[in-house]
């Protein structure tokens, strides 16, 4: 995965957690509970550092291998996952890029089979790589389409 994914996710973490912490602290101070405000800020900081560290590991945990007959995807740190999807079972391949992803030049590829539980998402690819992967997967899928 592109290391920019780490930056992007840390940015998302910052812009969600930090304002929340500030608002929470202000509310607690106004409510006359400055000690609790301090506790909340410390807790938020601990979570922030932990999540910051976890994001780095989690992004590094994503991996995929295009094998001859199937695609293998791994992900996760706390909850680890390895998915094997035969090309013949792919029903559609999504290429998704949200606004933050786009600003970092990232895109993710997601595979869908008839089973909703097939959770094969490859995030944080450079757009051209993602598009190439999507095209190869789609071609393989069409080639070997096996129906249900």
């Amino acid at each position, binding site marked *: 995965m*592109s290391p920019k994914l780490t930056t992007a996710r840390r940015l998302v973490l910052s812009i969600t957690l930090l304002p929340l912490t500030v608002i929470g602290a202000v509310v607690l101070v106004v409510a006359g509970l400055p000690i609790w405000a301090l506790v909340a800020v410390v807790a938020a900081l601990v979570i922030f550092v932990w999540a910051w560290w976890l994001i780095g590991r989690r992004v590094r945990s994503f*991996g995929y291998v295009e094998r001859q007959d199937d695609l293998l995807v791994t992900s996760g740190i706390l909850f680890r996952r390895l998915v*094997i999807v035969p090309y*013949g079972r792919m029903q559609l391949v999504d290429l998704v890029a949200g606004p933050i992803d786009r600003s970092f030049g990232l895109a993710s590829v997601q595979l869908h089979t008839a089973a909703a539980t097939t959770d094969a998402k490859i995030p944080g690819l450079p757009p051209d790589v993602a598009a190439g992967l999507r095209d190869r997967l789609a071609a393989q899928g069409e*080639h070997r389409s096996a129906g249900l």
Partner: protein
Amino acid sequence: MTLSPGAAPSAGGATQPQHVHPLTPWVHAMQAAPVLLIAVVVPLGNAGEFGAWIILVALVAVLLLVALIAGLAYLSWTRLTYWFDGQGDFRIDSGIVTRRERRLQLSRLQGVDVVQPLFARLVGMAALTIEVAGAGDSRASLQYLKYEQAQALRSEVLARAAGLTHDAGEAPEEPLVLVPPRDLAVSLLLRGTTVFLFLLTIALVILLSVTAGWAGLFMILTAGVPIIIVFTEFTQFFNFTVAKSPDGLRTKAGLFQVTAQTIPPGRVQAVEFVQSWLWRRRGWVRVRINVAGLSTTDDNGQNQSQMSTVLLPVAPYPVARQIVNYVLPDMDLLDIEMKAAPPRVHRRAWIQFRNLSVGWNDRVFVTERGKYVNRIAVVPHARTQSVRVTQGPWERSLGLASMHVDSPPGPVTVVALYREVAEAQRLAQEQNDRAQAALRADPSTHWMTQTGAGDSDEQSVADFAPPTGLPSEGPPPPVEQEGRPAAPSSNDGTPAGQSPPAPDDLRDS
């Protein structure tokens, strides 16, 4: 009417657009009437002393509402037409304000139901529901036809889906099993859910009658007591019969609303034998199935979807196996050697640790789990969508991992819980190989590879990740990707020193 497409009869068995039965609006109105009557009159009767004329006004209001429903139903009746088009698909045009033209590809047919709600049944009418594979709303319902007409249309749909000529006639039925109502009732009573619902009902009744007195009691009676769910299930599966016919397995059940369902051959994606703890002495099981398109999150109400996923509400295990043999032929469940999970699994699964096992033969993959509700799930290799290995923190601390076989949405989950990590990975890789081999061998699919079995199939998962498994910490900082974009060795997803072979290596090996 706006009927341009398919209006002219053409070659290929196309038919003229047809309306459903003209009495349909009346049936709709009559079905709505009792509900409306109860909804309007019951609160009034409770409110009491306003005099009879209020009730009269209410009755008139109900009548007007019923007339309104009948009028709307008549409008939609004039706008609803169905026919078979020249390409062998089933077409339905409907809608008063928003026009909707549906085209159901019969080659993707998953099931056909003939449903008879109570009132429709009294006047000899039935609705036909056609389900094709697809996400979301992939079913179409024709309300209402004469019962014989519905049956004829059902066999025509099935015959066309099977590629036969459309006048093949009704396929003969051969009854296999009838679930005696007494067994059904006993089985429903001997369930943890029933006990729970019963206690909940008692608690609710006591709570409400203490806090709100008679009004509370009345409230709970009109809102419904939880135990009613069990009764509903009883009426739903009443006189459950399974029959065999050339166009698939047929089930039929219902006390008030009778539903007859046909599952064409090869549509069942996975099967599960469920046994409640109290059923064990009698050797009873319930059989549930996954069929693509019949997900439980259906927008047509729970009744139908639950009906569709139960192949047999209760039966002795040998009988259930026999029935399942009709939907998944030659699977010889008894010959499969089940491998238990490692002994230390009792530290992860305190209750069900003796009941976790996995096995397979050359056609199906089988997993077992659960002590108080024992579930044996069966998935054919040819129906394996994908395989997964997952590991949560607790499992990792014990060196365990779970292996899943993904199946289309439905009640059946196929998971080999808590295996040794290396074993789980081996299971996943081997199941993937078996699934791919089955796909290549399956004549019912269009597997069009030019090459034979890939060499990469020989690669085991262990080559991609070490026994500790799924990628863990400590990789070197990511290398900027050059050349082949998908080269996994530059995707720092694996531990240092154990980088997976590049795809090129795989292809060359």
